[in-house]
């Protein structure tokens, strides 16, 4: 079943590792390194300590009865920023506000904050508001430096932009009659490049 999930959400939950501020309540974790290597020491985590924890760990430890920990919402998803997104989503530099705005936002909904409906709605409306700009810019920037267009996009938007660019480039190739031009496979080219750098090293 995990493989099916792979094809719809390509491995993003694994690649994106987030640090959140948490308020640990009443937990007594034994001191283990977060990579899972056992360092067997008893380290009391007293009530009310704040610590940073990767998202996957917070999700694993979280319980609805809220006995163990509560998660503090990053400021991008809070009231203040939500009104900014409501006013004009296009202007915001989403890359600076956490490159995984949409991904992390969807994961934060897991923690049963009372503001969940508003958060979800804001994320959705932000995406809708910004999508048009992303799509148009990706389809009209041919053979030029796109760094200015891409720098304020978050990772999801960047992959959409890349898809748009690839479509545009394929179409232009077709228009020039180069779609029947046979080329070496990209794997071969990359492999050859790597061998050259190995030889030079």
């Amino acid at each position, binding site marked *: 079943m995990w493989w099916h999930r792979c094809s719809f959400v390509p491995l993003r939950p694994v690649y994106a590792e987030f640090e959140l501020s948490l308020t640990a309540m009443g937990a007594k974790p034994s001191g283990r390194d977060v990579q899972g290597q056992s360092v067997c020491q008893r380290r009391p985590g007293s009530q009310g300590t704040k610590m940073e924890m990767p998202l*996957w760990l917070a999700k694993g430890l979280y319980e609805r009865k809220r006995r163990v920990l509560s998660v503090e919402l990053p400021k991008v998803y809070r009231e203040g920023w939500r009104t900014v997104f409501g006013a004009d989503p296009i202007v915001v530099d989403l890359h600076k506000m956490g490159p995984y705005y949409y991904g992390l936002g969807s994961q934060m909904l897991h923690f049963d904050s009372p503001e969940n409906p508003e958060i979800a709605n804001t994320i959705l409306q932000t995406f809708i508001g910004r999508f048009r700009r992303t799509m148009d810019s990706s389809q009209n920037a041919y053979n030029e430096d796109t760094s200015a267009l891409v720098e304020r996009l978050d990772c999801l938007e960047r992959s959409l932009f890349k898809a748009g660019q690839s479509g545009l480039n394929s179409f232009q190739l077709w228009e020039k009659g180069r779609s029947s031009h046979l080329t070496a496979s990209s794997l071969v080219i990359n492999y050859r490049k790597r061998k050259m750098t190995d030889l030079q090293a």
Partner: protein
Amino acid sequence: ISFCLNEAKTEGKSELIPSIKFRHSCLLRNQRCIAAYLYDRLLRIRALRWEYGSVLPTAIRFHMCAEEMEWFNQYKKSLATYMRSLGGEEGLDITQDMKPPKSLYIQVRCLKDHGEFEIDDGTVILLKKNSQHFLPRWKCEQLIRQGVLEHVIS
């Protein structure tokens, strides 16, 4: 894990539950990372069949583990069976003509020495570096993909 949790609850050691969950989360994460890495490798190996051909160079084979080699062979077999089932008696090679063909013969240049090459009517061509030839498209396609020949468009 549910067994451990139940045991912790029944024995009244419920303060151990966060530790159990912590360790379990770590194990699951390691498992996800490993699975993601192996899956990515598998996708690349599958792409090799399409982009390179059914015989992989030894350098690449060297980097694959035995199970991946086995997977590649099985994939090749499935693909071959499928291709045989298409297009009537002979089957259809769908790994050919990946880009729409415009002519039967194409001009190619050799990028490296590849030795002798026989075409359908029996003529043998010597593929020496930088030599140019006018050859049937279907014979050259795989060599172009492998980087031995280069398709020249005037």
